[in-house]
């Protein structure tokens, strides 16, 4: 028994080892590189010339564009995550009912998730175009409008469309998560509640919500991170134009790095984004892990 003890102490780490190796080598090392770059002077061609402390950060924070871009990023993340979570939840509730072709409908709902984001964004850009867009053609053929509508007259309108596309591709993921959760809830809970005279809403809030809540929080946290860092939708539709009005941190730093040759500042922007996400995630971790221990 005594012999076994040292092994028992290291055993968990052995189980973790493959995963740790995989992530350390392929992700943590590149992340370390980002930190290094953010504190280095980098030539326009991309070569690191030396340590420069926090110069890149002060340069980024001084510009007025950064505030605008940060504001956009928060609006983008909150809007996409909140709306797609709520809508995805409702959709899952609906799809959990029995109706004809349910299986087909469920498969169709996954479509937007199965197509790459670049293509999804490309199609929507094509759909909403004023001059040759499919939406105007459709509405004109149906007779709802008589002349083409400019769906994107302002940068704000563009941004709203981008948020719509973001929601469109995120909903399947949420629906998928909630749906598989709903299906595993034992029917006896509902039967008991019906006997007790509970109405639909009471059942929803007392039984359904608590039971899918935790699966929803995991998917929501990951969603926040993915949406915050999402690149293809905005890049394909507007490239952050005009003049950064539709930029988020990721498209902004992409332009800094690859269009302006400022890799150091780009890395600084991504570190700032990381810190913001860290703050949000640690709040979540503290709350959810504490609950789990209770």
């Amino acid at each position: 028994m005594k012999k076994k003890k040292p092994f028992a102490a290291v055993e968990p780490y052995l189980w973790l080892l493959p995963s740790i190796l995989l992530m350390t080598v392929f992700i943590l090392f590149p992340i370390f590189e980002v930190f290094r770059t953010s504190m280095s002077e980098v030539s326009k061609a991309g070569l690191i010339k030396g340590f420069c402390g926090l110069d890149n950060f002060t340069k980024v924070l001084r510009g007025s564009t950064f505030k605008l871009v940060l504001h956009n990023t928060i609006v983008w993340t909150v809007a996409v995550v909140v709306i797609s979570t709520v809508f995805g939840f409702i959709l899952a509730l609906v799809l959990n009912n029995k109706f004809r072709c349910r299986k087909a409908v469920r498969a169709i709902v996954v479509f937007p998730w199965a197509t790459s984001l670049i293509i999804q964004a490309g199609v929507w850009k094509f759909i909403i175009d004023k001059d040759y867009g499919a939406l105007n053609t459709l509405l004109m053929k149906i007779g709802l409008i008589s002349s083409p509508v400019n769906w994107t007259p302002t940068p704000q309108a563009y941004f709203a469309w981008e948020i719509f596309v973001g929601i469109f591709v995120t909903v399947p993921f949420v629906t998928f998560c909630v749906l598989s959760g709903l299906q595993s809830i034992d029917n006896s809970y509902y039967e008991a509640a019906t006997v007790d005279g509970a109405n639909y809403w009471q059942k929803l809030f007392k039984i359904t919500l608590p039971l899918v809540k935790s699966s929803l929080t995991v998917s929501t946290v990951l969603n926040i991170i993915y949406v915050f860092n999402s690149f293809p939708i905005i890049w394909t539709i507007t490239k952050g134009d005009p003049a950064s009005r539709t930029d988020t941190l990721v498209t902004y730093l992409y332009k800094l790095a690859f269009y302006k040759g400022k890799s150091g500042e780009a890395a600084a922007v991504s570190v700032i984004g990381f810190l913001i996400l860290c703050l949000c995630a640690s709040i979540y971790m503290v709350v959810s892990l504490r609950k789990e221990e209770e």
Partner: protein
Amino acid sequence: MNNHTRGTKHVILRVLLYLFVILVVLVTLYPYFVMFTTAAKSRAEIYSTDGTLLPIHWLWQNFKDIWTLAPLSRYFINSLIVAGGSTLIAIICGIPAAYALARMKFKGKKIFLGIVIISQMFAPVVLLVGIYKIMSTFGMTDSLVGLVFINAAFNQAFAIWLLRGTFISISPEMEQAATVDGCGKVSALIRILLPVAAPGIVTALIFVFINAWNEYTVALTLISTDVLKPLTVGITIFNGYNMVEWQYLFASSLFATVPVIILFVLIEKHLVGGLTSGGVKG
């Protein structure tokens, strides 16, 4: 009377339900309808001022042409290798980690879970330089193996969190009984726990597969040999300097969506319960 109103209410609810479902299906399929009809149009018709819903002349040829304009079948195979391989590795590495996190007590558990989340916090675009550096150290810059590992690593977070939740939701008693019977931890895991945890594993599987199938940025930077390109990167050939060949881009994208849908339909029935158990304790 009461019964009557309830019946009417029921009918109205049913109608609303169907209307809602139909609306969702229409909106979801609309972009695919646009992709499909655009793929069969000539460029002149795509941009015509007198827009058409359906092509005047169906150019079915476009769907055929893409297979000769680019080594599309080669790209398909590459994507399958990358998505399949990284799914396999992500699950194989994720299962033991999730098991340890669910069943064992040890120092640094929370830190590890935190690091797993942190690994997701940088957009791949930002990590390119570092990824390339590590890949050239291993001589994997222009190889599918490199892509397999990267995608597996990027999807570790979801796999671990999901599987950990699944395992926690399953009572450890059965494994304990098996261990007492002289069965090692590893074989108890494989024989007892994994079959019960199948829905969670299937969910993780489809998630990783879809993400790896659609990954673009890293593949673009790492792969330089044409015959090694996955589908997402390969079809950028239709996105030239002179023009975007919408018809070809959409036609090939439609083909690219098919494998994922097939996979989903095939394993959908195993999904039941996968994600809830991911969070809810049993």
